[in-house]
């Protein structure tokens, strides 16, 4: 017979104390400096790791319990969605291109985040951040896996999902998100935490997951909504970790302030540039729209970020640099990005199109200061040309920014008719930048950024053709050779949505789902 032993249940704080701090020790066979070789070289001074406070006080046992519950919920919905041919219930097949972009450009970052947090966690001498990083590392691999699982269902029916791993390291526009994470991952553990834990998770991911995923729900994509919200349910913990990292570092030593400020400036700008893709997804790729990129930016960056930086002012932190430019840009960047992908639709693994009249009107209304004046006439012109059989495909390669790797598509602050160019001479070369932000980031660490793998340069250097291809051969078609190297099927994965295989299949299958013939 079981004996009932009455023992006092530990409170949350005590339990957390035992299950984290109680697990650490000072090493003696090897010095702590040798066990944690990256803990000091960035110049961050930590005097007392026990001052680390994890506000959520989640212990591993509770972590497994809640994560398992999230997975059960997620897979129940994913299965139901697939069994019910859920892909045919999305608003229209154009929408599917938004999730192609997601799988190709964002899910691989989840995997990189997994590696990054495993690495950073290993390098911190303090037990509190080690446990928090371990949980986040596990969360991130879960995000990568659940996204790949959910989206694999679309791969059965639609083009462009088939080789995201191969493409990530090759396709021109994917070097933007990829190089962003490579930059963070190759930094020291403290910079990684400020870059990803704070600047990306706390300041910017709400913009990616909240309005976009809510938009997926609104467009009938239960699969994306489910993995999106399931990932996001970990995000509150990640954001809290990001904020705690900043507070902890700043409270430890006054010398840490300028280092952290420089990281916040750099990583807010880097992350902001990557989010250009999300702005375009929200404004152009969701057939049913919930809010514009500009509105999302105002709620999640200006309002929340504003409150955050007001709060951090007590540590001497000021808001990130280049905010005046960012403030002006919100009227422009989503339109500039869509125009670019429309131009380069031949070299993309997703389709682009000219918005319908309703959609153009929506954009005019959401962007009264910019859309009618600068962007609508161009889209209407392209539409006219396409009607005449001259769908515009740009065949020359763009100049890329050495830092963010985005083509030079952004305009001068204060003049949306003038492309913004900056340049720096370093050693024997000239380097080009899209903005003051990217230029200054380069100047701070030129030896890092001169190593950038810029897709356009690589193509011109002949490094983006399959083995055995001879670029000097008669009738050599460079675009076709590059697409082969990308594993991108011409006429299926690329070009305009209008006339695409996806468009035809979706129409036919949806017809079969609603009729008996």
């Amino acid at each position: 017979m079981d004996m009932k032993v009455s023992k006092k249940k530990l409170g949350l704080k005590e339990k957390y104390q035992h299950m984290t701090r109680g697990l650490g020790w000072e090493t003696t066979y090897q010095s702590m400096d040798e066990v944690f070789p990256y803990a000091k070289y960035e110049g961050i001074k930590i005097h007392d790791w026990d001052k680390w406070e994890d506000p959520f006080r989640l212990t591993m046992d509770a972590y497994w319990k809640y994560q398992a519950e999230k997975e059960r919920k997620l897979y129940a919905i994913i299965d139901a969605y697939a069994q019910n041919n859920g892909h045919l219930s999305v608003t229209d097949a154009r929408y599917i291109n938004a999730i192609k972009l997601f799988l190709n450009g964002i899910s691989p970052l989840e995997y990189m985040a997994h590696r990054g947090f495993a690495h950073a966690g290993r390098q911190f001498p303090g037990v509190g951040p080690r446990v928090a990083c371990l949980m986040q590392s596990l969360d991130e691999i879960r995000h990568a896996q659940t996204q790949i699982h959910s989206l694999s269902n679309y791969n059965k029916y639609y083009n462009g999902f088939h080789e995201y791993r191969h493409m990530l390291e090759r396709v021109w526009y994917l070097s933007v998100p990829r190089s962003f994470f490579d930059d963070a991952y190759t930094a020291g553990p403290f910079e990684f935490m400020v870059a990803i834990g704070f600047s990306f998770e706390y300041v910017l991911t709400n913009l990616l997951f909240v309005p976009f995923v809510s938009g997926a729900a609104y467009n009938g994509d239960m699969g994306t909504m489910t993995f999106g919200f399931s990932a996001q349910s970990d995000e509150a913990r990640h954001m809290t970790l990001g904020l705690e990292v900043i507070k902890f570092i700043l409270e430890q030593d006054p010398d840490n302030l300028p280092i952290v400020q420089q990281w916040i400036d750099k990583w807010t700008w880097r992350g902001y540039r990557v989010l250009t893709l999300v702005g375009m997804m929200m404004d152009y790729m969701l057939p049913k729209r919930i809010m514009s990129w500009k509105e999302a930016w105002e709620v999640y960056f200006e309002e929340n970020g504003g409150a955050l930086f007001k709060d951090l002012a007590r540590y001497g932190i000021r808001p990130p640099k280049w905010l005046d430019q960012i403030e002006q840009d919100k009227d422009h960047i989503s339109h500039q990005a869509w125009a670019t992908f429309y131009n380069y639709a031949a070299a993309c693994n997703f389709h682009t199109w000219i918005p319908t009249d309703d959609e153009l009107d929506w954009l005019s209304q959401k962007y009264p200061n910019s859309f009618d004046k600068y962007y609508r006439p161009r889209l209407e012109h392209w539409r006219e040309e396409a009607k005449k059989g001259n769908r515009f495909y740009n065949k020359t390669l763009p100049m890329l920014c050495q830092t963010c790797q985005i083509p030079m598509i952004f305009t001068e602050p204060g003049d949306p008719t003038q492309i913004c160019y900056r340049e720096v001479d370093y050693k024997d070369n000239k380097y080009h930048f899209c903005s003051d932000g990217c230029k200054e980031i380069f100047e701070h660490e030129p030896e890092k950024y001169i190593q950038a793998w810029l897709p356009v340069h690589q193509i011109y250097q002949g490094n983006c053709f399959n083995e055995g291809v001879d670029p000097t051969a008669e009738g050599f078609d460079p675009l076709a050779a590059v697409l082969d190297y990308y594993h991108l099927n011409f006429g299926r994965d690329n070009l305009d949505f209008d006339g695409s295989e996806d468009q035809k299949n979706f129409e036919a299958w949806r017809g079969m789902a609603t009729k008996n013939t």
Partner: protein
Amino acid sequence: MSKVFIALQTNDDTRSIIQAILADNPHAIANEQPAMVKIDAEGALVVRRSTIEELIGRDFDLQELHINLISLTGHVDETDDELTLSWNT
């Protein structure tokens, strides 16, 4: 005064949680969006275990919030009984 927020998925589990939050924070405003509810509040917001338990008629561990949580802002202070979000300014 800065605003804090908490966003939850819209489902059967969160219906009572949202109701409890709104009861405990008369200054909070619920903002419904597709598949989610975002609750904004000036200054601070508290999620109280006892109020949720009263509504759902069973024990509730505040960490169960993680299952349906989408996002939040502000400094987090969590005890067995309350989860508080606040800004210092």
